[in-house]
């Protein structure tokens, strides 16, 4: 790990070098009234004024629907074409928030908890993350309450902290990061000794994670779930914008004698998610599904995978049509 300084024009030259290297570059772009990660070619396309992209980088790294394998039956013989990890394009994510980058850890923990997930890992290997530390936050942000921070480097390959002169402190964190630096090493100057903390937004913690965890351990039968979830509509918006939600569905796209099996995003908040063929639904009510969502992230994952299933990005709160504010709900549980 190495810290360097890169000036304003250096940033642009380096960015252009990454683009010309042939890698796909995704960065936040402002279009249709929303800021989201999109393929970009020029630095000027990258959005400036925003707190958070609508969707997390999950949307750029993992396709919403992806072919696990395809098949064709010819003269009674089945030809199978498996997923090819090499088909995944090298991707660089530019201007990722630390809370997004931090999402890779819980995602990997889930996808690889017993057998390694070929697709997930292929995407991960091909992705490099250039994060920008956060100089601003809004009322939905709470990374500092879930072991994160505006300058958290977890999951990043390089982290830039923007300086008033337009340049940035560059923390080169991994080998992938070094590879990116190597595309234009000369723009990286020696560290000027600036403390990056000075440029980070001050985000006080909103709740104590251990305290919440302790409360949740005893809360399975609490009435709080019903109270909190009454207005929840049961859509999947929170799950789909979440950087750590990993629920998926397997579907068949069959056309006569050929077809493909598709993995696509799903959400534990959907009523159908746990519906059995028999008609029985172990999570019949919205309150049970809401409980599952919270307990999974704040209790089951820390317990079983040793990682908190939330990075405090606040996207679910922003995306929710009925203001299911996760911070408010967790805080209220902590206070109980």
């Amino acid at each position: 790990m190495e810290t360097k300084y890169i000036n304003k024009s250096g940033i642009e030259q380096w960015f252009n070098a990454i683009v010309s290297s042939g890698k796909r570059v995704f960065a936040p772009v402002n279009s249709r009234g929303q800021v989201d990660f999109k393929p970009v070619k020029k630095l000027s396309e990258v959005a400036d004024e925003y707190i958070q992209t609508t969707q997390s980088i999950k949307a750029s790294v993992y396709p919403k629907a992806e072919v696990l394998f395809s098949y064709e039956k010819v003269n009674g013989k089945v030809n199978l074409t498996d997923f090819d990890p090499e088909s995944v394009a090298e991707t660089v994510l530019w201007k990722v928030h630390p809370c997004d980058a931090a999402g890779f850890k819980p995602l990997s923990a889930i996808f690889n908890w017993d057998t390694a997930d070929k697709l997930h890992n292929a995407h991960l290997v091909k992705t490099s993350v250039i994060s920008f530390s956060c100089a601003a936050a809004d009322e939905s942000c709470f990374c500092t309450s879930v072991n994160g921070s505006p300058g958290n480097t977890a999951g990043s390959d390089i982290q830039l902290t923007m300086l008033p002169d337009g340049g940035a402190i560059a923390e080169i964190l991994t080998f992938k990061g070094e590879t990116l630096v190597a595309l234009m090493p000369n723009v990286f100057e020696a560290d000027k000794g600036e403390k990056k903390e000075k440029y980070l937004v001050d985000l006080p913690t909103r709740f104590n994670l251990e305290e919440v965890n302790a409360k949740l351990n005893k809360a399975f039968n609490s009435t709080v779930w019903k109270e909190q979830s009454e207005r929840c509509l049961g859509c999947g918006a929170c799950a789909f914008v979440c950087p750590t939600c990993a629920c998926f569905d397997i579907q068949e796209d069959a056309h006569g004698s050929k077809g493909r099996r598709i993995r696509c995003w799903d959400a534990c908040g959907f009523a159908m998610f746990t519906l059995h063929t028999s008609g029985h639904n172990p999570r019949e009510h919205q309150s049970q599904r809401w409980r599952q969502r919270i307990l999974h992230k704040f209790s089951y994952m820390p317990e079983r995978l040793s990682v908190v299933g939330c990075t405090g990005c606040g996207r679910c709160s922003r995306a929710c049509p009925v203001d299911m504010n996760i911070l408010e709900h967790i805080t209220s549980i902590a206070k109980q």
Partner: protein
Amino acid sequence: MKKLRDRAAELLSQGVVSLVIGYEEGTKRPRPLFCRNSEGAEKLIFDSHCFHNLAVYITKKELVGKERFAVTAPISTLRSIMQLYVENQLSEEKLLVITVDLSGELREFTTFDEIAAYVAQFELKRGEREQEILSKIEGMTREERWKFWMEEMSHCFKCYACRSACPLCYCSKCVVEVNRPQWINPWPAPLANMEWHINRAMHMVGRCTACGACGDACPVGIPVDLITRKMMEDLAPEFGYVPGQPAKQGNALSSWKLDDREQFIR
């Protein structure tokens, strides 16, 4: 506001209703509130920022239970309630509807006829946002419209917030979840999304009251409400129905006229 809170508290404490569905202050704007006692009623608010269509909750049995309940309803919610009524989803005995009229007075409806008469006073108009986007769409060629919507559809990740927020999407099993046959591909892909939204619009023919809840709910900002709205604007005059003032003897697609348009039929 005080009148509403007092009345709600009264209804709850006297046991007239067991639940009042209304609005409270939310993070950035009002949000739905469920009060089951007079304490909860203190949080009630009702103003022009109360946008959510609360009719979406009144068909959820696990929520409203078996006892009588009240709902505070701006005009858009009232229209949905009327539509739900003709679709046999509501009963007069169980529902008390409260609104605040233009003069700020509290009004209570115990019958659907009263609601129908009240709703009839209000005209459904395009707002600025709808006007802006729709006139843009109306100015496009067919190919441009296809491109426009395919771009929009590419953002859809099928969270079904549009469906969840719609008071009229109360099916216990939506057609997208029907898999024998799989009418609509369940994965989020541009055309599969397009199919979903075309299907949604078809299912809303003669039913959509243009409350805008679906578009408001979309986390990725697709103006899905304008699909159903434009459909409604185009078809309501032709089929002779008024959104929110439904006919009991059948909706636009379950009825017909001898002289319905057919110049497109060769």
